[in-house]
C-alpha cells in the first residue's frame, strides 16, 4: 500500500495538513494551493483524504455543516468530511476535484475564525503601503475588477474570498487560495485592515462613509458562515459589530478605470 504524503496548506497562519496516498490528488492539491504550501509549518489540524468514485454521493446535495461538541460533519454532493476539533484531526472522502477540499478548508477556517474573532468575507482584498483594503459587494459589483485595476505597487490578497483575523494590531487581512474557476490565487501576504469598501458600479468615482449599522449589515450579508451553531452565530455577530466600530467603511461607486485607486487610502 502506498504511504500517505502530507501537503501542508497555510492560510492566515493556520496550517492544515492534508494526507493522502493518491498521487493524482497530491498533484491536484499541490497545483491548487501552490502559493500557500508550507512544508515546514507545524500543522494545527490534519485531514486524511480518501478518494471515492464519482457518483458515490448525491451530486445534487446542498452543503450541510452540523455537529455538536466540537465534532463537525460537513457534506455536499462531492464530499463527506468529519472533523474532531479537540483531536485536531479529521477525514475527508471526496471525488477527484479541487473544489471539494477547497470547500472543506473554507468551512474549517470559517469555524476557526468564528471562534477567534475573525471571518471569511465575500470580498477581494489588496495591500498598498503596508495597509490592507477590503472590497465587498454582490456578484457583479466589481470585486475582481477593482483588484484587476490595481497599480503595480499593490499586492492582491484575493479576488474572491478575504480572510480577516483579529490580531494584537487590530484586524489583519491575509491572502487566500480560495478562488473560483476563473479566478487567480491570491498572494500569501498580510497587512492590517485600513478600510472596507462596499462596491457598486457607477459612471464616476464616488466615496461615501457608511455608518456602523450599515457596516454591520454589509459585513453580515457577505461573511461566509455555514454552521447552525448558536454560540458561533453569536460570536460572528459580535465580531462584525466590533469590526464596524474599529474599521472605517465606505460605499464606493466607481467607473472601471484605474483612477479609482486614487480614492483608496
Amino acid at each position, binding site marked *: 500500500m502506498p504511504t500517505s504524503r502530507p501537503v501542508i496548506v497555510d492560510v492566515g497562519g493556520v496550517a492544515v495538513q492534508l494526507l493522502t496516498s493518491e498521487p493524482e490528488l497530491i498533484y491536484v492539491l499541490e497545483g491548487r494551493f501552490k502559493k500557500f504550501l508550507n512544508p515546514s509549518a507545524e500543522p494545527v489540524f490534519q485531514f486524511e483524504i480518501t478518494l471515492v468514485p464519482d457518483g458515490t454521493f448525491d451530486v445534487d446535495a446542498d452543503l450541510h455543516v452540523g455537529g455538536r461538541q466540537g465534532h463537525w460533519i460537513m457534506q455536499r454532493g462531492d464530499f463527506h468530511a468529519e472533523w474532531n476539533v479537540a483531536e485536531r484531526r479529521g477525514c475527508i472522502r471526496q471525488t477527484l476535484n479541487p473544489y471539494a477540499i477547497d470547500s472543506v478548508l473554507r468551512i474549517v477556517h470559517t469555524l476557526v475564525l468564528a471562534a477567534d474573532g475573525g471571518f471569511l468575507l465575500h470580498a477581494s482584498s489588496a495591500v498598498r503601503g503596508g495597509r490592507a483594503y477590503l472590497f465587498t459587494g454582490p456578484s457583479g459589483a466589481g470585486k475582481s475588477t477593482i483588484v484587476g485595476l490595481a497599480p503595480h505597487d499593490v499586492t492582491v490578497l484575493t479576488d474572491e474570498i478575504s480572510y480577516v483575523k483579529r490580531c494584537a494590531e487590530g484586524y489583519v487581512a491575509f491572502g487566500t487560495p480560495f478562488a473560483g474557476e476563473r479566478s487567480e490565487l491570491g498572494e500569501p501576504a498580510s497587512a492590517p485592515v485600513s478600510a472596507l469598501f462596499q462596491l457598486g458600479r457607477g459612471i464616476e468615482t464616488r466615496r461615501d462613509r457608511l455608518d456602523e449599522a450599515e457596516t454591520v449589515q454589509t459585513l453580515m450579508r457577505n461573511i461566509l458562515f455555514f454552521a447552525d451553531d448558536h454560540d458561533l*452565530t453569536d460570536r460572528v455577530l459580535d465580531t462584525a459589530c466590533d469590526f464596524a466600530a474599529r474599521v472605517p467603511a465606505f460605499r464606493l461607486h466607481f467607473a472601471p478605470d484605474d483612477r479609482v485607486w486614487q480614492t483608496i487610502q
Partner: protein
Amino acid sequence: MSAFVIRGERLAARKVGGEMVILSADDSSLFVLNEVGTAIWEAADGRTSLDAIADGVCREFDVDLETARRDISEFVTSLAGAGVVSLSEVERQ
C-alpha cells in the same frame, strides 16, 4: 384578548446605531429592524401584550393607536413567519 409576542431563541441580535441586527443560527438569515421594529423587538418578552406594545409605540413615535395596532400586527406576523418571533395567546410566566 391581546396576544403576546416572544423573541426566538436561536438568534443573535445586537443593537447598532438604533437598529436591531438579527442573525438566525439556523440558516444565517439576516434581519434588520428600524427604530419602531427595534422597539417592538425589545418589548417582545412574552409578558407584554401586543396592545401594550402598541400603546408604547404610540407614546414613543408619532402614530395613532389604530395604525400602530394594524402595523404591529402585520409586522409580528411577518417576523413569526420567518421564525424570528412566536405568538402566543398566553402570557409567559
